[in-house]
């Protein structure tokens, strides 16, 4: 593939053919602030924060939508651009709680502390699930915005907590549109879209229905893509240790991160670095693992049914019983069902056993949602 040479802020950088200016900059560790950009999603150019100056272009252009070309000269942080970004942020902050952005106690306050700035409870930083892990905070910090008086007003929109796994508080929504794009473009579900017009536009299900009453599959991709605290997982306590592992629900092999505390799984996140699932999970992988692992009904030893009563036995004993009984049947009277929680190798052996030893083609696996 042809490599492009361009200059960004005086630095000579290389970019892949077809990449955008923003991608080229990020690949070369040049930070351009943005809110609506997401590497997996189509660019919309909506937040207007990634605007840059390109020689030969009349206007400032959003770098997320402009393709890089050879010997392009780009400037990302001229005083005019910083000013433009600061002003583009203004309207966002008129609708998003913003006291956290200018408060030095941001990291210090506990949930019960009296707010130094007398901020209403709904707008307090400590009530925001993404406090100090928020892309808006990061962007504001970058453009050094602390000079403009913002006329903020709480929108008083109802919080949608119909879904058992996540909630939607659109009072914090900045309408970057990532949730609706991820739902449409990656998931192909289309449960979330933009509705209403003008300043009343919102991201959500058609007709502002509760999300649970739509065709939402509760995969949580929208929540993971939200740059601010508008969408958040309901049950996400802070983990002590995080362990990367592979989901055992099916044969796809999605990477996930198990958060544990006192040797118990307390939350699950998709592994963004996994090549298999690239940061997305299905509803089972995302929300069912921690319930399944510690569930009292979970099978941990083989059970034998003797006259209606299940009694635990050891594995060798169980295998002996199965082996002795199998002899009583003809091969087409037997079926083998294996589990996708087993490894691929185990499953391979199971079907081989069915076909060669038992002589049956009645083989199945539970690898489906």
């Amino acid at each position, binding site marked *: 593939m042809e490599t492009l040479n361009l200059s960004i802020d005086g630095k000579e950088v290389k970019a892949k053919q077809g990449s955008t200016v923003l991608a080229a900059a990020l690949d070369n560790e040049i930070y351009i602030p943005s809110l609506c950009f997401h590497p997996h999603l189509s660019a919309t150019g*909506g*937040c207007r924060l990634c605007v840059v100056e390109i020689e030969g272009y009349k206007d400032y252009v959003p770098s997320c939508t402009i393709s890089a070309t050879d010997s392009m000269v780009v400037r990302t942080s001229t005083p005019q651009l910083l000013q433009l970004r600061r*002003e*583009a942020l203004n309207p966002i902050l*008129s609708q998003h709680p913003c006291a956290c952005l200018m408060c030095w106690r941001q990291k210090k306050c506990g949930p019960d502390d009296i707010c130094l700035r007398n901020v209403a409870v709904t707008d307090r930083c400590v009530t925001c699930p993404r406090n100090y892990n928020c892309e808006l905070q990061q962007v504001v910090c970058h453009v050094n915005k602390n000079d403009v008086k913002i006329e903020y007003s709480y929108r008083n929109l109802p919080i949608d907590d119909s879904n058992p796994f996540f909630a939607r508080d659109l009072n914090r929504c900045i309408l970057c549109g990532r949730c609706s794009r991820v739902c449409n473009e990656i998931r192909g579900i289309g449960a979330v879209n933009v509705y209403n017009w003008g300043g009343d536009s919102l991201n959500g299900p058609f007709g502002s229905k509760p999300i649970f009453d739509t065709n939402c599959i509760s995969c949580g991709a929208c929540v993971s893509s939200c740059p601010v605290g508008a969408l958040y997982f309901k049950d996400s306590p802070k983990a002590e240790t995080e362990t990367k592992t592979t989901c055992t629900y099916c044969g796809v092999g999605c990477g996930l991160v198990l958060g544990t505390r006192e040797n118990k799984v307390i939350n699950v996140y998709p592994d963004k670095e996994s090549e298999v699932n690239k940061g997305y999970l299905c509803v089972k992988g995302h929300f069912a693992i921690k319930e399944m692992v510690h569930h009292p009904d979970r099978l941990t030893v083989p059970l034998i049914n003797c006259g209606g009563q299940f009694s635990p036995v050891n594995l060798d004993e169980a295998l002996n019983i199965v082996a002795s009984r199998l002899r009583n049947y003809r091969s087409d009277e037997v079926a083998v069902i294996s589990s996708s929680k087993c490894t691929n190798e185990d499953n391979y052996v199971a079907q081989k056993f069915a076909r060669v030893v038992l002589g049956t083609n009645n083989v199945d696996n539970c690898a489906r949602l």
Partner: protein
Amino acid sequence: MTFEDIRAAAINEWDSLEKSDQVRIYLGSATCGRAAGAKTISDELEEELQKRNISAVITQVGCIGSCYLEPLVDITKPGKPRISYGNMTPKKMVELVDDYIVNDNPRPDLALGSIGEGSVEGITDFFQTPMLKSQVRIILRNCGFIDPEKINHYIARGGYSGLVRTLTMTPDQVIEELKKSGLRGRGGAGFPTGQKWEFCQRAPGNEKYIICNADEGDPGAFMNRSLLEGDPHSVLEGMVIGSHAIGASQGYIYCRAEYPLAIERLKIATDQMRKYGFLGKNIMGTGHNFEIVIKEGAGAFVCGEETALMASIEGKRGMPRPRPPFPAIAGLWGKPTNINNVETWAAAAVIMQRGWEWYSQFGTEKSKGTKTFALVGKIERTGLIEVPLGMTLRSIIYDIGGGVLDGKEFKAAQTGGPSGGCLPQSNLDSPVDYESLAAAGSIMGSGGMIVMDENTCPVDIARYFISFTQGESCGKCVPCRLGTRQMQKILQRICNGNGEQGDIEKLQKIGETVKTGSLCGLGQTAPNPVLTTIRYFRDDYEAHIHDKKCPSLTCKDLIRFYILPDKCQACLICLRNCPAEAILGGKRMIHVIDQDKCTKCGTCFDVCPKKFDAVVRVTGEKLDVPDEPVPMLAGKA
């Protein structure tokens, strides 16, 4: 059938109508005429004719442009010119049937003018009347003359000869002809049309689309509607010409669903074209294939923006996308697409019919040709006009429009709809062309022209337009979605009398951000009304903010109504008409307005007899009038 045969038949049909020995009656029955009551007139007319046993040919025609005179009825008697009658009522219609059709008295007192050869005593030529005299009707040449539902009428008046000529030329020759004509996009931005077609023609790809943008959403604009209702074939001919030049096999007309008559007439017209072989497979035997789909828009203003319009055709929410890639490279369904306004397509047809030399004689050096405008607002003669580009605002407003309504003072003219700018008196003598309007901070737009008088408050107008664009913003980009909302809030505050020091600067700052930072044309032009009114009417803003006064006496929170005790004749008229029951008084008791109850609707001001003139509107001051009704002084009536 060759085109010559078709044309001969069409001319025959047209002549048999024009030279028929029956009485011919033309009814202006576009939407404007219908709204003014054309249907009742037509029913009345038919009934009267039947009663008297007169046979007449009644033709429904489009709008001739004199909207203030609707409903219009034209009558032609054999051997006489056509005579126009305006502001018709069923009663007048009956009179005309009796006096003119039966008794041969043309009633010069009711007539507006005569059209065509010959003259009638006491009636002037309609095209010599002030409204039409300085107009050059090229695009609108057929509106009001032909039956828009009859393709033969259009063909008889030269229609489709441009298409026939085009099909003998190569696409490059057609584009060259358009380039020479100097035609620029009539949707507002004024991009040279020939060049635009060329980009799309040269774009790689086998499948290309052309689109006619008939999503006319500006408040107070109706140019496209009138054209589509009065002469749909001229637009369709332009599109077929464009399809040949660009190499497109599929065309779309994106027309708002609020124009049911236009859509109906377009459907009839496309069916007729298919019958004559002007549309469909193997057009006129040349092997060129072209189909047109009429897509009804749901009425979002932003869908007039080309990329949003294409998203809407694709079935998505009408939201613009950033350019590049431009539609000429990747437009509808990702294929090269050329999109033009209704008027541009119609102009392309005329250019191919009459040649670029003829067309380019009109207009200025950089802005060739004519432009239609919807002249509305506080003006004597509202209507649809067509003038050569470069005519001054003054001639449009005073010569054609007849000046400001009721002889009031001219305050401003808004060109280009809600995205345009408010031009003051000092700009009256500047020519109306793309460059001059842009220099004045406004735009040509698609041709809305709203005239405002001294009682129109520029701050209020800015507030109105920004709330319109704010509500129509698609919500995609931040400056437009929330910047306009902030501007609206500030303007609302100013109009309510709560303006603060520094508000003007804040408005200008946000306005510039919205202008430079927005994604599409809607946002980039949305602050124009605010910025131009600040530029030209800063005094009004300052009066609102610092003195809490509205000099135009419009903003309700800044004005008060009073009844002057020395003028009030205790006639009870205002008292009875007040919808808020805010007027106290009685027989021989001077009336008083209860300021707490008053909703400032202005009814008392309007109904107080002119000879008394007792109700006054004031701003920023309190008049010393009694609080309670007092008996009238002895000696007064």
